[in-house]
C-alpha cells in the first residue's frame, strides 16, 4: 500500500503492527486459559470415571450399579451427575437420574474417548469421557479370590461420564469478550496515542513550514531561523534547505548587484543625455551648435545601445539561457574581420596592429556569433586600452588538436594587482576608465562567459614590461560539438 502522507503511513503501519501484537497476545492468553481449563476438566473427568468404574460390581454373577445407588442417595448428585453404563454383552444400559432418559455418546473400545461439545439434558454444554470398563468381582463363597475371578463370567461394560462445563464455557466466553474489548480499546488508545505522538513530532515541521512561508526571499538580509526542537531525522533536510536558501540568497544578491550595476552604468549616460539636452534647449543657438550637441547625444545613445547589447549577451550567458549554434568557424577569418573593423579606431590612437595570422587554416567547431563577440571584445579591449602609439599584437597559431590565439598590448598604467578582478562584471581598472563612457567593465566578463560556454581555455597575464596579454586555446574540447 502506498501512502503520500507520512502521517498516514506511520499510522497505518504502526497501527497494523500494534493490532497484530495485541491480537496474537490476546489469542495466546485465551488459548492458554482454555487449554488449562480443558486439561483440568479432562483430568477431573478421567479421575471421576476411574472412581465410578470401581462402583460397578459383580457379585456371584450379578451386576450391581453401586455408583447409581450412591447418586440416588445424594440429592445434589441426582441433578448434576451424568453417568451412563452399557452392558456390552446384552446391550442393557443404566443412566443416572440427571440424564432423564437421554443417552450420552458411546464408542466401543478399550481406550478413553472424550467428547468436548455435548448438549446435556438441562441444555448446558458438557464434556463426556467414556471407556470400556469391567465390573469389580465380589464373592461370598469360601474359594479364594483368584480362582473365583477365573471362573466368573465377567461382562465388559462401557461407562460414559459427562461434566457440565457451561460455567467454564461461559467464563471462557467472558474472557474472550473481555480480551476482544481490551483489544479494540487498546487499538483505539494506540491509534489516538500514535496520532498524538506523530502530531507532536510534526509540530516543529509545521513551525518550519511557517518559517519557510514567512521567510522574505526578497530581503537579502532575511535569516532562515530553524526551530530549535527540530527532530534530528529532518535536520539534514533542513540543512539542505538552508543551503538552498543560501544559494537562492546568493543568486538574488548577485541579481541585485547586477541590476544595480546595470542601473549605475545606464544612469550616467542618461544623465549625459539629459544634461546635454537641457543645456541645448536652455538658450537659442545657432544650427551648428544644435548639430554638435545632437551628435554628442547620438554618440551617448550609441554607447548606451552597445552597452545594453553587451548586457543582454552577458545576462543570457550568465544565466545559461544562451544556446550554442555549432558550425565550422575559421578563426583566421574571424580575427582578420575584427582587425579590419577596429583598424580605424587603432589608427586614431596611433596604434600599430601586428597581426600574425597563420596561413594554415585554423578551423574549429563552435558558435561563430559567440566567437565573433569573444574576439571583438578582446581585440577591442586591447585597442581601447593600449598605450597610445604602442603595438597591439594578435597571434593565431595552429596547435595539436586546435588553435592558440594570443592578444597582447602595452598598458603602462595597468596595476598588476587588478589582474584578479578584470573578469568581474562591471569592474573597471583606472586605466580602463575613460571619459567617453564607452567601457562599462562588462567586455572581459562577457568574454569569460563565452569562453566557459564554448570550452575555450582563457588566461590573462601582465608582464613586468607592462604587456597585458590574453591567451586562448581552442583545444580538443571544441571538438565536442562536432
Amino acid at each position, binding site marked *: 500500500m502506498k501512502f503520500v502522507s507520512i502521517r498516514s503511513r506511520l499510522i497505518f503501519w504502526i497501527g497494523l503492527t500494534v493490532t497484530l501484537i495485541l491480537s496474537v497476545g490476546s489469542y495466546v492468553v485465551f488459548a492458554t486459559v482454555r487449554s488449562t481449563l480443558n486439561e483440568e476438566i479432562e483430568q477431573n473427568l478421567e479421575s471421576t470415571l476411574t472412581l465410578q468404574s470401581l462402583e460397578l460390581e459383580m457379585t456371584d454373577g450379578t451386576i450391581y450399579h453401586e455408583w447409581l445407588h450412591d447418586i440416588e442417595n445424594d440429592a445434589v448428585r441426582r441433578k448434576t451427575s451424568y453417568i451412563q453404563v452399557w452392558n456390552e454383552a446384552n446391550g442393557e444400559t443404566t443412566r443416572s437420574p440427571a440424564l432423564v432418559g437421554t443417552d450420552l455418546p458411546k464408542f466401543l473400545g478399550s481406550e478413553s474417548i472424550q467428547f468436548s461439545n455435548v448438549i446435556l439434558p438441562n441444555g448446558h454444554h458438557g464434556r463426556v469421557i467414556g471407556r470400556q470398563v469391567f465390573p469389580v468381582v465380589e464373592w461370598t463363597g469360601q474359594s479364594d479370590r483368584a480362582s473365583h475371578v477365573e471362573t466368573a463370567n465377567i461382562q465388559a461394560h462401557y461407562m460414559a461420564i459427562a461434566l457440565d462445563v457451561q460455567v467454564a464455557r461461559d467464563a471462557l466466553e467472558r474472557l474472550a469478550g473481555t480480551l476482544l474489548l481490551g483489544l479494540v480499546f487498546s487499538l483505539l488508545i494506540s491509534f489516538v496515542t500514535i496520532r498524538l505522538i506523530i502530531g507532536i513530532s510534526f509540530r516543529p515541521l509545521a513551525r518550519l513550514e511557517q518559517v519557510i512561508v514567512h521567510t522574505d526571499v526578497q530581503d537579502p538580509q532575511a535569516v532562515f531561523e530553524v526551530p530549535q526542537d527540530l527532530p534530528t531525522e529532518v535536520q539534514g533536510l533542513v540543512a539542505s534547505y538552508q543551503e538552498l536558501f543560501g544559494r537562492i540568497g546568493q543568486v538574488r544578491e548577485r541579481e541585485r548587484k547586477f541590476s*544595480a550595476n546595470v*542601473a*549605475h*552604468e545606464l*544612469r*550616467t*549616460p*542618461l*544623465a*549625459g*543625455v*539629459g*544634461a*546635454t539636452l*537641457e*543645456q541645448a534647449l*536652455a*538658450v537659442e543657438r545657432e544650427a551648428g551648435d544644435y548639430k554638435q550637441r545632437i551628435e*554628442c*547625444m547620438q*554618440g*551617448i545613445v550609441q554607447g548606451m545601445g552597445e552597452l545594453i547589447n553587451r548586457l543582454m549577451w552577458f545576462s543570457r550567458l550568465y544565466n545559461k539561457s544562451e544556446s550554442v549554434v555549432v558550425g565550422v568557424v575559421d578563426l583566421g577569418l574571424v580575427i582578420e574581420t575584427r582587425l579590419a573593423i577596429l583598424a580605424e579606431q587603432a589608427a586614431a590612437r596611433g596604434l600599430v596592429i601586428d597581426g600574425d595570422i597563420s596561413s594554415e587554416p585554423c578551423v574549429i567547431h563552435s558558435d561563430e556569433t559567440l566567437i565573433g563577440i569573444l574576439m571583438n571584445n578582446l581585440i577591442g579591449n586591447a585597442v581601447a586600452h593600449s598605450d597610445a602609439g604602442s603595438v597591439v599584437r594578435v597571434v593565431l597559431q595552429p596547435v595539436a588538436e586546435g588553435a592558440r590565439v594570443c592578444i597582447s598590448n602595452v598598458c603602462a598604467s595597468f596595476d598588476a594587482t587588478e589582474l584578479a578582478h578584470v573578469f568581474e562584471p562591471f569592474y573597471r581598472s*583606472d586605466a580602463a*576608465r*575613460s*571619459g*567617453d*563612457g564607452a567601457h562599462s567593465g562588462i567586455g572581459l566578463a562577457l568574454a569569460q562567459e563565452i569562453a566557459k560556454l564554448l570550452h575555450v581555455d582563457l588566461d590573462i597575464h601582465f608582464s613586468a614590461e607592462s604587456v597585458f596579454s590574453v591567451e586562448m586555446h581552442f583545444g580538443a574540447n571544441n571538438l565536442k560539438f562536432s
Partner: protein
Amino acid sequence: MRILVIEDYTPLRTAMVESLETAGHAVDASGDGEEGLWYAQNHDYDTIILDIMLPKLNGLQILEAIRGAGKGVPMIIISARDTVDNRIEGLDAGADDYLVKPFALKELLARVRAQTRKAYGKATTLLTVGDLSIDLPAKRVLRGDQEIKLTSREYNLLEYLALREGEVVSRQEIWDHVYNYYEDASSNAVDVYIGYLRKKLGSNDGTTYIQTRRGQGYQLEYQTL
C-alpha cells in the same frame, strides 16, 4: 561663485560646466580624481561638485582628503548610486548634499545656490543692503522698487560682495570667486567692474554701497552722506 566640477564622463561634465558658467559661475573642471583633488587643495571654491566613481582617486577619497585638511567648502556628490546606504556613505564622508543621476541641471544649480548661500550664512534667497535688494534665484537687483539692469559679470560681482556684506573683500578673492582663469586677465579687471557697478548703483541722494578700503579691497556697506 567659483565651482569645481569633478566628473569623468565627458558629455555630462561639459554640460554641467556650460550650465554653471551660463548661470554666472566661474568653473574649473576635472575628469579624474587626482587632478580634481589637486584643484580642490590649491584653490578656494564656493562649492565642489564631484562624482564617486572616478579614475585614480574616487570621490569618497577626495571628500576625506579635503575634510581631513580642515576645509569646510560645500561639496555636492553626483552619483548613479542611488541606494540609501550609498547616500549615507557619501554624506557621512563629509558631503553636504547628494544628487542622484540623472538629474536636471536646474536642480543642480539650485543646490549649488543653496550650498553657497549656506556657506556664507545667508538663510534667505533675498539679500538686502540698505534699500538694495538682490533676488538670488531670479538674479534681479532692485533699489527700492526700481530694477537696476546689470551685466552678468556685474551681477556676479555684486552677488559675491552681498554674500560677504560688511566684510572687506580683497581683489584676489573677487578674482578667485567671480572670474574664470582663462578669461580677461588684465590686472585692473576687478577695479574696472567695481567702477561700473558703483555707477549703476549710484544715486542722487549721496548714498553709497561699495566702499574702498585702501590697500585691502572693497566692502559692501550701505552709507549715507
